[in-house]
């Protein structure tokens, strides 16, 4: 049986979702989630939250005007050396 109970699984949940646990703990937490419905739901909640952040808040890109300005400055800098 898994050595991870609900309290321990939930305490490690954030780190589990970001894959910041040791390989051994990753396996144990995953095993617990597979067998515990409330913890599984909680994990889905946190996962959906992280997916939202990753996809919705990382869409902005550097404006082309700024990119061009920086490239021009770097070229000038290289010439002056």
């Amino acid at each position, binding site marked *: 049986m898994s050595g991870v109970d609900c309290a321990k699984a939930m305490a490690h949940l954030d780190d589990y979702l970001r894959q910041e646990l040791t390989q051994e703990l990753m396996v144990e937490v995953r095993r617990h989630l597979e067998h515990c419905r409330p913890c599984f739901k909680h994990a*889905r909640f946190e996962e959906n*939250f992280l997916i939202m952040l990753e996809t919705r*808040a990382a869409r902005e890109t550097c404006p082309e005007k700024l990119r061009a300005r920086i490239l021009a400055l770097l070229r000038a800098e290289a010439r002056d050396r």
Partner: protein
Amino acid sequence: MAEPSAAGQTFDQEALPHLDALYRVALRLTGDTSQAEDLVQDTMLKAYRSWQQYRPGTNAKGWLLTILRNTFINDYRRRKHEPIAMDLETIEPYALDRSIQEVDPEGSFFAQIVDARVLEAIDALPDEFREVLVLSDVEGMRYAEIAETLGIPVGTVKSRLFRARRQLQADLYSHAVEMGYIQPRETPT
């Protein structure tokens, strides 16, 4: 960039791909597009001038973000709406957390919230929370990289991140209720 020197070439290859991430982090730190543009430009110039200090093949994104953050702290005005000072370690995140999960156990409401509102909620976080959340959950940096970039212990990164996430969830939950994405459960009085 048509830069003939070897140094210029590695800078192009290793630094330029991170412009989008630098710009996003600058936006979240300054809360202002024109300041964010200046900050990214200053950062790239400083990075170029000290490129010989960068060890090729190491974490260029972290190196650049460290310069960006130091530049921000030293040279830029803090955002106008400085969040109310609070004791970061004493915020109690659990109560709201539970009530959210009773109503929408799997958090499907997150998918309904528009991008602009997500960013607004991130921007409303206290500075110390916002920067770890952006570096970790938006830009995908590892805890250890964030600790190095911010000059704080990994344990502090984790505790700030934990509280930042809970605070953001609570804010987005209230928004989702307001917008009618979810119906709060009637609490018997």
